[in-house]
């Protein structure tokens, strides 16, 4: 039997993509989940079929998960702790959260 017929290694999976769905105008794209996709068009279609078919959807963004730059747990202390006792430094101390009027206008 040729090698191509053996089961793929776990890392032979298609690329992982993060999916962001906008439900209507004037709302932000929100993270909906992740899907696998062979390439951008395939991933976009998969995102549509998994996340957008049932609900109300205005637009979909996808981005390959590898392209997201994120903090690590090791960063937590130096990144976040210094501000945790100074809530007035956070923009949302003064005003809105995502669900507030700010986004609906």
């Amino acid at each position, binding site marked *: 039997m040729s090698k*191509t017929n053996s089961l793929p290694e776990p890392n032979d999976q*298609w690329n992982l993509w993060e999916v962001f769905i906008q439900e209507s105008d004037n709302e932000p794209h929100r993270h909906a989940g992740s*899907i696998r996709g*062979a390439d951008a068009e*395939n991933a976009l*279609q998969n995102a549509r079929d*998994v996340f957008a*078919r049932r609900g109300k959807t205005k637009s979909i963004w996808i981005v390959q998960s590898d392209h997201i730059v994120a903090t690590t747990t090791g960063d937590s202390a130096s990144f976040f702790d210094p501000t945790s006792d100074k809530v007035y430094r956070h923009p949302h101390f003064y005003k809105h959260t995502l669900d507030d009027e700010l986004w609906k206008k």
Partner: protein
Amino acid sequence: MEKIKTPALSEYLIRLADDRLILGHRLSEWCGHAPILEEDIALTNIALDCIGQANFLYSTAAESEGNNRTADEIVYFREALEYRNLLLVEQPNIDFASTIVRQLLYDTYGILLYEQLQQSTFKPLAGIAQKAVKELRYHFRHSSQWLLRLGDGTVESHLRTQNAVDKLWKYTDEMFISDAVEVELAAKGIAVKSEALKERWFTIMRDLISSATLTVPVQGSFIRKGGREGKHSEHLGHLLSEMQIVARSYPDIVW
């Protein structure tokens, strides 16, 4: 609204519905078996679109007959001989490549057909067509993208896809036969003469198949047809026996 009640109208609507139902059922057979979870969901979504369109068409057919037949009765209690779908849509899945090629051959035809049916003088059909066209355009996007990937993919995917194109091509001429029912309804502006769709269909298919680095088959002199008269391949009987078993074993069951 003008009432149009002719056997031809019901016959035509049932044909359209049977095409959608049988193709949808074939796709539903992939549920739980597709190569990857996302594709499993995609194929079953498309299956649901097809069966949803069929449901509207059956109900409209029953209404036009002026009797109380329900869509379920039409679907579950007819024999293969009474089914009017194209032979193409009843062909088995075989592999992913065959499924995609069968889908693409129909999707391309479906878009051309339902685009025109949006202008049908029979308003309920025009309404169904408007919804169907949107869905078919997505189905086409899905199947045409896969054709390009499979044809221009690995040696194996190329071979399997070419094989599917070669095997299914002989069923495509049946889509473009305009018989007495179609001609009668087309004269009233209700139906579309499908023979008029062939040229555009062929151009689109030829370009897509070539882009996928595949070869367009030469149409043989022997055309596979008969679906519209109930002369089906052996595959439809097996499909129906599975689809109808519950409804026939427990008539009037509700779920």
